[in-house]
């Protein structure tokens, strides 16, 4: 499958770039932790409030960090002549899209592991349903990365990219925020039954945007 081959190439390139520059590890992950700390300041050091609000705060921190990771991911592709080079490369546009999504997913999963450790440590919350927690992270991250990559290329090459991207993307990912928060809330409580329903919604959302991205990416890659 040439799509998967091309996606693998882009993924490998993005991971190598991260290895060389450490932007995610050195800047985005600390930013996510900083957001967690700021939430704690804003909500007073009342552990009860913090632990009750943990699912929402966690996913808000992820969302804000995702915006930074996205801007980094598409700043790289806007470099010196790179958009032209991508168009001339012969890479399948759908493969490029999947590769960018995969790269973002890897970076964000690392971020989420750190943030999970952060909320456990700072907010004193411990999950009851670890499996639900893990699969929710996977599905929600895939959805966020798919929407993010779609809107990332959509706002590529614009002078106002950095302000337009959040405005376009955040309302669209609102269902991810709601579903992931609800699934997490279920995982942190004893009863995780309703959490699986929300997980299902996340999977459907991610699949939908992956398909939309694969179809629309070619058109959006043109003349950016």
């Amino acid at each position, binding site marked *: 499958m040439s799509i998967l081959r091309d996606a693998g190439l882009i993924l490998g390139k993005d991971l190598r770039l991260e290895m060389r520059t450490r932007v995610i590890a050195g800047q985005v992950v600390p930013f996510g932790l900083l957001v967690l700390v700021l939430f704690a300041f804003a909500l007073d050091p009342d552990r009860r409030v913090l632990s009750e609000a943990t699912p929402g705060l966690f996913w808000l921190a992820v969302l804000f960090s995702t915006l930074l990771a996205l801007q980094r991911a598409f700043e790289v592709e806007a470099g010196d002549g790179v958009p032209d080079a991508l168009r001339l490369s012969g890479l399948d546009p759908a493969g490029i899209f999947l590769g960018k999504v995969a790269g973002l997913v890897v970076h964000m999963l690392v971020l989420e592991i750190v943030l999970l450790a952060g909320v456990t440590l700072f907010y004193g919350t411990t999950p009851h349903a670890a499996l639900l927690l893990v699969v929710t992270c996977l599905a929600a991250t895939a959805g966020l990365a798919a929407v993010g990559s779609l809107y990332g290329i*959509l*706002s590529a090459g614009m002078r106002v990219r950095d302000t337009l991207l959040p405005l376009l993307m955040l309302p669209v990912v609102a269902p991810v925020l709601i579903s992931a928060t609800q699934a997490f809330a279920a995982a942190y409580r004893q009863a995780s039954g309703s959490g699986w329903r929300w997980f299902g919604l996340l999977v459907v959302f991610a699949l939908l945007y992956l398909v939309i991205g694969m179809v629309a990416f070619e*058109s959006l890659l043109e003349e950016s």
Partner: protein
Amino acid sequence: MNPLFRMHPDGTASRASRVFGLVLLVAVAVFLAVALVISPPDSGPNASENSMGDLVRIMYVHVPVAVACYTAFFVTAVASVAYLVRRSEGWDLLAAASAEVGVVFTVLTLATGSVWGHIAWGTWWEWDPRLTSTLLMLIVYIGYLALRGAVLDPVVRARRAAVVGLVAFANVPIVHYSVDWWRGIHQPATISRLDPTIDGLKLFALMFGMLVAIAVYVWLMVHRFRLEFVRARLEEQGLDTALAERRAEAETASGANPVTAPKGAS
């Protein structure tokens, strides 16, 4: 073109749209009379179980503008698909014009709904699924307009806006069915069901209001579309001049070189 639809050289009106506008003006006046005076208040022996009194009159504006904003965003989605298939400028302009009017109607929907909510429910705003999803829909379409304002090249703008205009429409059914799918404070549908739970003059006022609101949307949208169309033509005129100027550059350049015969004599 039929002279009825030919635009006036100094504006965006044609003879047909002027007549349409005048009829619309009369219709709005009649509608206001029906909605505010002629139709009965929801009180007295014929009151519904809610007995809202004069409050019910907000519905004759609120529901029609909501229907008009659905219509506007539906037209945007259809025009976006048509643009992606046909790649013609007209569809792109139609999508833009419709979304712009749709945003105005969405704001009106939220504003009238807020007044209603304050009086009937006891709150200006509530995080109810219908209200929340409507607000998100509004922001999505504001983002659509921001995208259109940000990209300069018309072809790039059209292509990107078409993708967003299509994806954004996913909000509309969610907004409409949110009252059935999830629990909220907002009432479920009154007329878009098999057995409308409204009758008499109230039903007439509501249906008449919808007709008027959609007509107002069409009128606004047509003028917005024409404005964009004229603007595009203006740019095209500029293009012809630019082409001529560009070719003239060559004439001067080759004029400096006596041996060459200028091109473009054909």
